């Protein structure tokens, strides 16, 4: 016999009560765990995906939309900008480099991005197989695209207009898979990359085409295959890196006031997005803490009431030689067992729910939210629940301490 067996006996003698208390606490802890995992990973993903991009320039509209569309590939484009105007910006002395982005087509919900090889380098992408695209209609696909669509090197497919599956298919111009990327844990995993002119060609009406011989002297910086004077060409946006810190002050203001384009900073917009999401997260966190508080109260009441029922047990234990301290320890152990079990169960539940979420909800897969990650904060949750157990059993253990053996045993 020992204290653990004794506490186990007590908990098992009221199975429903014990289960309810553990479940109640587990729900609160699970909510906090989910929020923690979600929040941390989302922040990590956002900072990973915006690394190396100081500014996004695109058509006027919502800056947040510009960022969501061109960096995270979840919203729709704000419109197009002229390639000539983009070219001028790319040559600006404050711009270190600029990457063109041409969006608008997709295949089976995966976006096709017309860009150059520098875009893949941003995320330090490496080829798992094949080669980089070199000609029109050659694509390099992200690892998730390859997996979920079972595409291999040499596979061909036709793109659909628009960013969802119901767009009409561009049947006349199939793409061919030239390379497959290794997993980068960034947006690249869900993208199909090609050159900008492929995107243009897909949308050209028959007869239309690059006007050869317009000018052969100067070609575009961003899309070398195009003459600089070709004013009909458009792209969706430019991803920029500043040359120096002064650019951070001057460039966005110059673009937003002097051109008909807009500039948006990914880090600023991401922070703004988080402050909007933050309200919801805060509300959920508050709710989780209310749940934990109620469960603590319920555990306290359960201990308090059961100690009243157990006054004979306590007195008889004292008569058999138990010290006051031993009774206090037994009571504390019971409280701590409940809270630590609740918290362990809650953390498991949180990870489990997030796992199901990541399996069932496609968007969370794309966002790269994983349930198999553990943070040190979960250790704090466990330690906190230990303290909570001690707090819940403080008054009941004082009751146990004060047990008046003579009064109870004489009161037949």
């Amino acid at each position, binding site marked *: 016999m020992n204290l653990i067996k004794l506490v186990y006996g007590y908990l098992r003698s009221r199975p429903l009560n014990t289960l309810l208390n553990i479940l109640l606490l587990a729900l609160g802890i699970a909510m906090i765990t989910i929020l923690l995992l979600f929040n941390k990973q989302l922040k990590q993903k956002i900072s990973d995906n915006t690394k190396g991009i100081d500014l996004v320039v695109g058509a006027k509209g919502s800056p947040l939309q510009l960022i969501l569309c061109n960096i995270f590939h979840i919203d729709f484009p704000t419109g197009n900008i002229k390639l000539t105007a983009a070219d001028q910006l790319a040559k600006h002395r404050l711009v270190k480099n600029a990457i063109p982005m041409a969006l608008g087509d997709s295949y089976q919900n995966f976006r096709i991005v017309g860009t150059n090889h520098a875009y893949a380098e941003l995320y330090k992408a490496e080829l798992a197989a094949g080669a980089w695209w070199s000609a029109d209609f050659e694509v390099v696909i992200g690892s998730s695209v390859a997996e979920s669509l079972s595409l291999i090197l040499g596979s061909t497919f036709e793109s659909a207009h628009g960013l969802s599956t119901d767009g009409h298919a561009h049947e006349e111009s199939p793409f061919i898979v030239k390379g497959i990327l290794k997993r980068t844990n960034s947006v690249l995993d869900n993208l199909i990359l090609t050159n900008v002119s492929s995107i243009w060609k897909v949308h050209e009406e028959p007869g239309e085409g690059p006007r050869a011989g317009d000018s052969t002297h100067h070609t575009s910086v961003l899309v070398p295959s195009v003459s600089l004077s070709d004013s009909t060409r458009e792209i969706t946006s430019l991803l920029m890196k500043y040359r120096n810190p002064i650019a951070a002050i001057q460039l966005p203001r110059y673009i937003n006031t002097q051109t008909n384009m807009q500039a948006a900073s990914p880090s600023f917009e991401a922070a703004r997005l988080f402050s909007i999401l933050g309200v919801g997260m805060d509300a959920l966190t508050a709710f989780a803490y209310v749940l934990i508080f109620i469960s603590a109260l319920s555990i306290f009441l359960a201990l308090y009431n059961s100690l009243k029922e157990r006054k004979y*047990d306590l007195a008889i234990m004292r*008569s*058999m*030689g138990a010290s006051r301290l*031993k009774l206090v320890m037994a009571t504390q152990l019971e409280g701590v067992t409940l809270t630590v079990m609740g918290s362990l169960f809650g953390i498991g539940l949180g990870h489990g729910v997030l796992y199901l979420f990541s399996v069932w909800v496609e968007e969370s897969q794309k966002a790269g939210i994983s349930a198999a990650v553990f943070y040190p904060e979960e250790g704090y949750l466990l330690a906190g629940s230990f303290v909570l157990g001690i707090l819940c059993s403080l008054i009941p253990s004082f009751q146990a301490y004060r047990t008046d053996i003579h009064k109870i045993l004489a009161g037949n």
Partner: protein
Amino acid sequence: MIRTQSLTYAYPAEKEIFFNDLDVASGEQILLLGESGSGKTTLLHLLGGLLKSQHGSIEVNGTDLTKLSESELDRFRGKHYGFIFQRNHLMTALTVEQNLLMAPFLAGLRQSQERVEEVLEHLGVIEKRKSRIQDLSLGQAQRVAIARAVLNKPSVLLADEPTSALDDKNCDRVSDLLLSAALQNQATLIIATHDQRLKRKIHNLIQL
């Protein structure tokens, strides 16, 4: 072995109770008889160290109980006493065996399965070893309570109305078992009761 001198006790706002000096030899079996309110439970609790005396001295096995601190008294109880009450006060959350093992655990003594079996065997409830307390009859429960009291081989067995709740047949069996358990474990037995049926078995009477 148990000796009291000019022992008195007063409950708050009540008249002081005076107890005659006691001198009980080792292995003796004594009946404390008296009507309810006569102070026999008070005396029994004083002798068992469950109640701190206000005046006088109580010497048990050469130790003056009145001089012990609360935690010393806890340890002393664990080592020297076995208690039996009118109600069995078994812990319903535990099995019969676990209830019995609580005695050596709380007294800080070695826990022995063989001893548990030996005692249950002697008291005729060995087949209830793994049972839950709720599944015992009243007589069985009281026998388990006796088993728990004698498990540590205490030198003093104190019983407070052990048979009052039982019918004649069970009273007979329980008191026989109590006496034989005390004899077998060489314990001094003091029974406080108003149950006149016990007079037939124990002739050493102290009337309060």
